[in-house]
């Protein structure tokens, strides 16, 4: 109700996402401070409700159209719940579902939306959100004075532990799917799993990772040689796999893989938030980027602004290629 904080839970292939718990932890904190309830909204997969025990209330909504994510079906269900419960604040993540849903919900529910939020507080009646903008090179502090606000939160901004509590006794309420769910026009065809068979970069102790700074496919040879000398697999940022220079299985980040090697060597990677999401947990990060202000240096332990074309051959030689 008026002071409630509602989290739209996300699940993929039968599992709740980490971001769901990150949001839930934050919702519990904010709702507690304002005397409202932390509400988790679970669409499809009602069997996962027991894992959302950190919430004061879990609302489930099950309908054949919600078996898989489509923005249209999710929007129909979420909008119906929001219209009925009118929470103060709705939290989503800037995941695929969040990017697809937040904007249309803000229109449907007529609520201001702040995206790529990394900090969130309620200051009396004002919601104060800090959001990343310009690829993480700037932060914007935004004040929303509205009875309803939607925030789409960057993954990893809040600890997931605060949102993980098994509590089989949490109140669960089933919400009847609105009639609009019967009229959803988008249909799910199939889920495509990534190719198996390539090296598993999540299992490696050491990764040599390369970004757009490498310039061309031919130049990849240079880092391949270093990776070979170190006995480490080659990983990459998104543009490198989009261009087909390396297979998708090597992509680190938001839509790629999350890696936590003992050391991560980044060459020519700027450190966009979507990339950092996949590797900031590495034990040791060493970054090479000619731009001294590249955000990668904020997560790296060691850095150099040398040209990768000067450094990489030198490294290969010293490692004994």
């Amino acid at each position: 109700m008026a002071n409630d904080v509602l989290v739209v839970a996300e699940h993929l292939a039968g599992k709740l996402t980490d971001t769901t718990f990150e949001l839930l932890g934050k919702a519990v904190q904010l709702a507690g401070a304002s005397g409202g309830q932390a509400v988790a909204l679970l669409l499809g997969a009602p069997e996962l409700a027991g894992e959302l025990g950190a919430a004061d209330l879990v609302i489930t909504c099950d309908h054949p159209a919600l078996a898989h994510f489509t923005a249209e079906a999710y929007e129909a269900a979420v909008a119906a719940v929001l219209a009925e419960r009118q929470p103060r604040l709705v939290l989503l993540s800037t995941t695929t579902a969040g990017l697809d849903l937040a904007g249309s919900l803000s229109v449907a529910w007529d609520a201001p939306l702040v995206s790529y939020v990394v900090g969130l507080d309620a200051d009396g009646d004002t919601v104060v959100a800090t959001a990343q903008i310009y690829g993480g090179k700037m932060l914007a502090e935004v004040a929303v004075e509205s009875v309803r606000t939607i925030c789409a939160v960057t993954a990893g901004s809040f600890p997931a532990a605060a949102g993980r509590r098994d509590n089989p006794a949490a109140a669960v309420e089933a919400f009847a799917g609105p009639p609009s769910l019967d009229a959803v026009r988008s249909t799910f065809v199939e889920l495509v799993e990534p190719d198996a068979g390539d090296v598993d970069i999540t299992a490696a102790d050491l990764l040599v990772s390369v970004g757009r700074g490498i310039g061309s496919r031919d130049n990849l040879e240079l880092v391949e040689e270093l990776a070979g000398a170190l006995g480490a697999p080659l990983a990459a940022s998104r543009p490198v796999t989009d261009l087909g220079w390396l297979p998708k299985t090597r992509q680190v980040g938001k839509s790629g893989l999350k890696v936590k090697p003992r050391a991560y060597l980044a060459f020519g990677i700027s450190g966009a938030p979507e990339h950092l999401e996949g590797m900031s947990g590495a034990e040791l990060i060493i970054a090479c980027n000619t731009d001294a202000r590249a955000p990668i240096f904020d997560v790296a332990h060691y850095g150099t602004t040398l040209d990768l074309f000067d450094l990489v051959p030198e490294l290969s030689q010293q490692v004994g290629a």
Partner: protein
Amino acid sequence: MTAVRIVVALKQVPDLVEELEPSPEGTDVDREYITFVLNEFDDQALEEALLVKEATGAEVVVVALEDSDVDQTLYTALAKGADRAVKVTGAGASGGWLDTHSRAALLAAWLEGQDFDLLITGVQAPDDLDGQLPAIVAGRLGLPHASVVVSVEVKDGAARIRQEFSAGRSAVLEVPLPAVVGVQAARQAPRYAPISRIRQTMQAGGIEEVAVEAPPPASGFTIRRLYPPEKTSHAEMLTGSAGDVAARIVELLRAKGLVRA
């Protein structure tokens, strides 16, 4: 069957390669010296639209608000193969930072008078603060939509779309037209237009200008301040020659037992 009509919305954004500084008021970036370039995700969206055109004979219309250096971008799109280019002028369409809800309102005002099957645009832009364009426009127009899309194929009045999730998973969806799609990456790298071709399109002119009346700014919030992130940590910078730096890196890896020799 008549040809599918695709509208591709393009947007100019500050070039992130350059240094960005807060403006004197501290609520925007200083726009005086920055270069504006096409949002890279919009470039991907255009490429995907051109691939659909090649496969089906669709018509591709590019549209942009009147942002800095947008003419160059529109001419380049024509040179790459777009059939028409439209520049939306009017209240709020030029000048400083404009929130995405207002951009969506301006675009929707133009789109409402158009007959189109697909609106394709980038999944996001680096200066989005109040959400991403595809879902907001779709919400305004009441159309089905999908974002973070990596391929679009059009057949029999529907779009078959591949939507990407995390860890390399993706879903195939079928969405009836008209629909809105937010492209993350095209099936192939965006093509280049030869300079000579861009010059030709410039000489031929051909950007249609349309003025629209738009509702007032609609983000519903105020920006209190814009600032570079306070560094809670920063890498220790290794200096010296490539040889020196390489030696330090090898030492760091050796200390972790990650280099054998």
